[in-house]
């Protein structure tokens, strides 16, 4: 009988680490299929490709942990980046100031979302969906959909390297660790987890559920704006389609990594990070082996499905 218990525990342990196992599997498969996959250059380019989604994912993790969903992040990213870029390019504001303003503006949008959800007590999906509509509308009106090119001050961050990585990649990785610290080691972070874990209990104990939710929305907005900033550096311009559909991809990525949609459970590092990384790797690997563009999405869907299938097994044991 003890043997059965042991086997069961082993299975559970394996399934609890399914993401990592799956990640290694993906690396192995793609490495076999393409000699260029398992190289330092490619690792760098995967990291670089994941920066925007990582930033949005960090913010989204806070929203999910507190038990809400922010569907405006993609539009918010485009909005904050566009507005600040306009100020920078057309109105000649200080580029550094404008860069810093991007996350701030994003945070403001998040704050509005949060106020509508917590104070006016509206459904978060609808609020953030409406916000998405409105923000895209505003951006199109403001920019006339012309791409805005960044000045040299912004671009220099791309060429400035730390440990062989562009500075903005290092920056987001450091920010990621800081946010994980906030979540794990500060009173604020723990109370966010508490609110998401059991909002009823939180309000019974006198934690201000509203305020922590508001904070989570604001953080989610800030990181959407930060994503805009990173893409400005990475890309050197703000173009149309920026952030389009990123809300869903980001949710998929971090849920893949193990952040719970029900709230309370999750971490920025490693969970959200791993999720984003795996999704980026799938895309990178498929591109590298030259997957037919017509089957690209089908393959992606199947890979995610297999992964969620394995993941679901752990709840059944």
């Amino acid at each position, binding site marked *: 009988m003890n043997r059965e218990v042991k086997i069961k525990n082993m299975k559970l342990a394996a399934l609890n680490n399914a993401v990592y196992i799956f990640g290694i599997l993906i690396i192995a498969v793609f490495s076999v299929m393409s000699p260029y996959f398992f190289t330092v250059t490619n690792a760098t380019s995967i990291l670089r490709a994941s920066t925007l989604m990582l930033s949005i994912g960090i913010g989204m993790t806070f929203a999910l942990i507190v038990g809400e969903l922010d569907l405006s992040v993609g539009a918010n990213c485009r909005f904050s980046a566009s507005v600040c870029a306009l100020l920078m390019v057309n109105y000649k504001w200080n580029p550094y100031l404008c860069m810093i303003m991007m996350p701030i503006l994003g945070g403001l949008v998040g704050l509005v979302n949060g106020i509508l959800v917590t104070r006016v007590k509206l459904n978060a999906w609808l609020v953030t969906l409406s916000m998405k*509509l409105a923000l895209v509308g505003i951006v199109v*009106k403001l920019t006339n959909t012309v791409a805005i090119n960044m000045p040299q001050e912004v671009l220099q961050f791309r060429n400035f390297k730390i440990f062989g990585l562009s500075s903005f990649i290092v920056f987001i990785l450091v920010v990621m660790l800081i946010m994980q610290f906030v979540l794990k080691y500060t009173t604020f972070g723990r109370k966010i987890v508490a609110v998401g874990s059991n909002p009823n209990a939180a309000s019974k104990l006198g934690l201000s559920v509203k305020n922590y939710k508001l904070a989570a929305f604001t953080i989610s907005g800030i990181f959407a704006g930060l994503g805009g900033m990173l893409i400005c550096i990475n890309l050197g311009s703000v173009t149309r389609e920026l952030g389009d559909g990123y809300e869903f991809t980001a949710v998929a990525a971090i849920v893949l990594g193990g952040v719970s949609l029900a709230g309370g459970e999750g971490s920025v590092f490693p969970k959200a990070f791993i999720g984003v990384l795996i999704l980026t790797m799938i895309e990178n690997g498929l591109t590298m082996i030259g997957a037919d563009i*017509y089957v690209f999405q*089908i393959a992606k869907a199947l890979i995610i499905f297999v992964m969620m299938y394995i993941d679901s097994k752990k709840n059944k044991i």
Partner: protein
Amino acid sequence: MNIKEYFTKKEKAFSNRKDKNFLLTSVILGVLFLVAIAIAKPQFYAFRNLSSILIQSSAVAIMAAGQIYVMVSGGIDLSIPSVMMLSGCIGAYTMRETENIMLGVLAIMMIAILLGLFNGFSVAKIGINPFVATMITMIFSNGLSLRVTKSTSIPVLPKFTELFGKYYGPFHANIIMMLVCLIILQFLLTKTAFGRSIYAIGTNEKTAQACGIKTGKIKIQVFLISGIMAGLAAIALTARISSSSLSLASDGTSLDVIAAAIVGGASIKGGVGTVLGALIGAFIINGLSNLLVLFGIDYYTIQIIKGAVFIFITWFDTIRANARRV
């Protein structure tokens, strides 16, 4: 502050008065709004215009009805528009190859049902979160439609259009299809044990299970229904625009389907919502766009206004809920 005064005020606070007042205000506001339109833009009420709004709402309303089922059961189906697109494309493809309408319709419904079942199994049997499960289906269907159509558009047979995309008397076939679907679905949801079970699952799945309700089976059925609705919407749409292509479902469509359901009173958390609400939601969305176009407002401004109006409507809904709750 005098504590006693503070509390005596509250003593009188409870009653249903607020609810009644609220209903009255919203009805008056609504009527005023409609009258204002009648004065400013009488064209809005032209029969052709109203019928055109109805036609445009029909596909969204049909899909939103499916979405309502999923949402009442506590899930979400992001894949409805993509399934609609895929089944439409495969249907048109079949029709082109076989020259047979029945086979085409069959293909559409088969694909829609298959994908609905797939969603259902992923959620109910495998236990994948509905958000992610349907997203997988969404990506998959988008990819497969691309593969099938090779990004061209495929015309459907003229007879198909005649059957499902023409006027019967003053009513467009789409409108008739929408009304039939909605009546049946509304009936199923509110008047039968099956419908009651769906509400039960959305309110508390574990309790429903302990009550002996077959939650797994019902969830599969719910996703099946949303799949079928996607298929029916595909028939309505492909017949109306007489072809199938990747442009059947735009980003806007998926938002509209979810927004119609929520504006109509459903909640992501499950347990509330009616098919009728979805219909009204679809009308509001399309009627609003139509009205704003009549005023000559451009597309992107309409998007901004739309966002604001959605928020306003749910806000009204919240006030009502609060009024009920004292």
